[in-house]
C-alpha cells in the first residue's frame, strides 16, 4: 500500500484480537460441551449446560466477525485459506449447527433428548478438532499460484494437523474445566478438576510437540527463535509457559476457584503469541505477508471507522452480559 497512513497494523491488531477473543470465548464453551458428555446424571448435565447457555451465542458471533474481518481486511488470505480448508470448515460448521440447536431443542424436544445431548457433546468435540486441524494446516502453509489456492481439498490432512486437532480438543477441555471450576461447586467441580488435570497433560504434550516440530520442519521458524539475540528476547515465552503450566497444575489440585481458568487463559495467550512470532509477518504462511494480502486503503478505512467506534461498545455490553450471569450456577433455578 502506497499510502502513508496504512491501516494494515490497525487491522492486524483488530483481526488478531477478534480471533483471540473467539478462541478464548468459544474455546471455553466448546470445552464445556466436550466435558458435558462425561457428566453422569441429568442434574449435573443441566447445570453444566446452564453455565454457558446465556453467553454461547454471543461468543460464536466472534467467529462470524473474525471470518468477515479477514475477508474485508485481508481478502487474498480469505480467498486462499478458506477453500484450502474446505473439509475442516465443513466439519466445523456442521458440528456447530448441532451444538447450537441442542441448547434450544434439548429442552423443547424431550422425547429425543438423548439425540440432542449427543449432538451437543460430539458437536462441541468435532468443532474443536476441526479448528485444531485448521490451525495445523495453516501453519503448514498452502500451495498457491498467483492469487489462488491450487492444491487439493485433502491437502489439509497431515500427521501434524491431526496432532494440532487433538491438542486443541485438550486445550478447549482445559478452558472448559477452568470455567466449570469457576462456575460450579461440589461433585461437578471435582470432576472438572480431574478433567482439567488430564486436559493439561494433553495440552502440554501438544504444545511441546508443536514447539519441537515447527522449527525442525521450517528453517525460517528455527532461525526466528534460535538466532541471537532473538533467543534472548523470545525465551520468556516458553519459560513463562512452563511456569504457568506448573501454577495451573497446582491450582487444579488446590482449592482455588478461578486459578485454573486464569492459568488456561494465560497458557492460550502464550501459545497464540508463540504462533504469531513464528509466522510474522505472513498471513498466508510462507506466501503472502499481511501487507500483500491487504484490501484497498479505502476499504480498510471505511470499515475501520465503524469498527473502532462499535468494538468498544460491543465489548462493554458483552462484558455486561457476563456480569449479569456472574457467580455459581444452579441447576434447579436456571442460571442466575
Amino acid at each position, binding site marked *: 500500500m502506497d499510502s502513508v497512513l496504512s491501516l494494515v497494523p490497525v487491522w492486524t491488531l483488530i483481526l488478531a484480537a477478534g480471533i483471540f477473543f473467539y478462541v478464548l470465548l468459544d474455546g471455553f464453551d466448546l470445552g464445556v460441551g466436550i466435558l458435558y458428555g462425561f457428566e453422569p446424571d441429568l*442434574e449435573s448435565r443441566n447445570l453444566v449446560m446452564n453455565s454457558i447457555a446465556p453467553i454461547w451465542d454471543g461468543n460464536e*458471533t466472534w467467529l462470524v466477525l473474525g471470518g*468477515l474481518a479477514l475477508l474485508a481486511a485481508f481478502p487474498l488470505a*480469505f480467498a486462499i485459506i478458506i477453500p484450502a480448508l*474446505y473439509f475442516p470448515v465443513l466439519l466445523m460448521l456442521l458440528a456447530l449447527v448441532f451444538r447450537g440447536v441442542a441448547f434450544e431443542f434439548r429442552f423443547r424436544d*424431550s422425547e429425543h433428548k438423548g439425540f440432542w445431548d449427543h449432538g451437543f457433546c460430539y458437536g462441541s468435540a468435532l468443532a474443536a478438532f476441526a479448528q485444531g486441524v485448521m490451525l495445523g494446516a495453516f501453519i503448514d502453509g498452502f500451495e498457491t499460484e498467483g492469487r489462488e489456492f491450487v492444491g487439493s481439498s485433502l491437502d489439509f490432512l497431515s500427521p501434524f494437523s491431526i496432532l494440532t486437532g487433538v491438542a486443541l480438543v485438550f486445550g478447549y477441555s482445559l478452558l472448559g474445566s477452568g470455567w466449570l471450576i469457576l462456575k460450579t461447586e461440589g461433585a461437578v467441580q471435582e470432576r472438572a478438576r480431574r478433567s482439567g488435570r488430564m486436559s493439561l497433560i494433553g495440552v502440554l504434550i501438544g504444545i511441546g510437540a508443536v514447539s519441537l516440530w515447527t522449527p525442525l520442519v521450517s528453517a525460517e521458524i528455527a532461525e526466528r527463535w534460535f538466532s541471537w539475540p532473538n533467543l534472548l528476547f523470545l525465551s520468556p515465552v516458553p519459560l513463562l509457559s512452563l511456569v504457568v503450566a506448573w501454577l495451573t497444575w497446582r491450582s487444579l489440585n488446590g482449592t482455588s476457584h478461578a486459578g485454573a481458568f486464569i492459568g488456561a487463559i494465560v497458557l492460550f495467550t502464550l501459545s497464540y503469541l508463540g504462533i504469531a512470532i513464528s509466522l510474522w509477518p505472513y498471513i498466508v504462511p510462507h506466501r503472502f505477508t499481511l501487507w500483500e494480502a491487504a484490501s484497498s486503503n479505502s476499504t480498510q478505512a471505511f470499515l475501520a471507522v465503524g*469498527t473502532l467506534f462499535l468494538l468498544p461498545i460491543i465489548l462493554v455490553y*458483552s462484558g455486561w452480559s457476563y456480569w449479569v450471569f456472574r457467580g455459581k450456577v444452579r441447576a434447579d433455578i436456571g442460571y442466575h
Partner: protein
Amino acid sequence: MELDPVFLSRLQFAWLIAFHILMPALTVGLASFIAVLEGLHFFTRREIYLRISTFWIKIFSVAFGMGVVSGVIMPFQFGTNWSRYSDATANVLAPLFAYEGLTAFFLEAAFLGVLLFGRKLVPPGAHFVAALMVAFGTLLSSFWILAANSWMQTPAGYEIIDGRFFPTDWLAVIFNPSFPLRLAHTVVGFYITTGFAVVAVSAYLLIRQKSPAEARTALSITLWLLSVLVPLQVFIGDQHGLNTLEHQPAKLAAIEAHWETGGNVPLILFTIPNDEAERNDFTIQIPYLGSVILTHSLGGEVKGLKDFPPDQRPPVALPFFAFRVMVGIGLLMLGMVVVSWWLRWRGRLFDTPLFLRACIAIGPLGFIAVLAGWTTTEVGRQPWIVYGQMRTADAVSPSLTGWDVLLSLIFYVIVYLIIFPAGAWIMARIIRKGPATDDAEEDEPIEAGRPSKPITVELHAKGEA
C-alpha cells in the same frame, strides 16, 4: 462421470440460503410484531397483549436460534466455494457484510437476552426498548445484506483494476440503483409472510377454541396491519419491476418470457419457454397488458431476450414460473385481505369457519412466495454473479473438484433435513399449547429462550394437560 463444481456449488448455495431465508422471513417480521405488542402493552397496560407477545416470543426464539446457526454457515460459503468471487469483490462488498455483523448481530444478541428473560428483571419501559432494539437489529441486518445483494444485481460506485472491483464512492455502492426498492420489497414481504403466519396460527387456535380471546386479538391486529402492507407491497413490487426493466432488462425479459423486442407486448399468463428454439410453446396471454404493467403505457417497448447474446441470457423457465408463483400468492393474499374487510364490516370475522380455514391454508404461502421471489431475482441475474461484470462460472474456488462439492452438499442436505423439520416440529408444539389465557396462571419462566425448569417438570405438565 464428470461432476461440475460450479453447478454443484450453486446448488449447495441455493440449498443453504433457501432454508436460511425462511428464518429471517419469520424473525424480521416477528421482531417488529413483538415490538408492536410490547408497545401496545406498555401504553395500554392491557395484559392480553403481553400474553400474545410472550407466546410469539417463544416461537421467535426457536426461529432466531435456527437463523443464527444456518446464518453462521453463509459467510464461509463465500470462501469455501466462491473464493474467486471473494477475491474479486471483497474490497467493495466485505465491509457491508462486516457492518452487518458489527451493527446487527451483536445488537440482537445483547437485547435478545433482555427480551427473552428480562421481563421481571428490568422495568417495563426497558423491556419495550429491548423489543424495539431487537426489531431494529433485524432491520439493520436486512439493510446491509440487501445492500450487498443489490450491488451484485446493479453494481455502482466501483472501478475494475486487474479483474478486481475497487470502491470509488461508498454511498453509491450502498445506495446502488436497485437497493431502496429491493430493501422495501423484501422487508415488506417478510412482514406479510409473518403476518399471514400469525393469522394462520390465530385461526387455528380459534377453530380449536384454544385461548380464543388472545387469538381474536392477534387475528384482528394482524389483519389490520396486512390491510396496509399487502396493497403497499403491490405498489412496491410494481416499482421494483420498473426498476428491473431499466437496470436488468435481460432478467425482466426472462421473467416475462419475451423473446422479441417490441411495443404492445402481451402479458403471458402461462407458457413453456423453449430456450434452445428461442420461442414459447402453449402460450396463454392477454394482449397489451404486458406493456401496460411494465411501462405503464399501452404501446410501451419492452426488450426481448433475442436482443442479448445467448451467453448473456438467464434461463427463462425458472424466473418465469417463480415470478408467477410469487405474484399469484400476492394476489391471493390481497383477496384474503379484502374478504377480511367485508367480514369485519359484517361482524363475522371470528366466526366464519370457511374464512378461518382459508386463513390456515394461506399461512405457509408467504414463505413459498419469499422463496419464489428470491429464485426469480437470483436466477434472473444469471449468468452473472455481478450483473454484467463477472460471470458465476468464473467465481467458484479453482481448487474444488465436483466430488468435493457433492460430498459437502450431501452432508448439508442430511443435516438440514434433520434440523429444520425438528425446529418446525418444536414450533408446532408451542403453537398447539397456545398462549396462556389468564393472569392467575403463571407462565413458565423462559430464560434465554429455554425454560429453566428441568425437563421432567415439562413432561409432567404435559401428562396433566
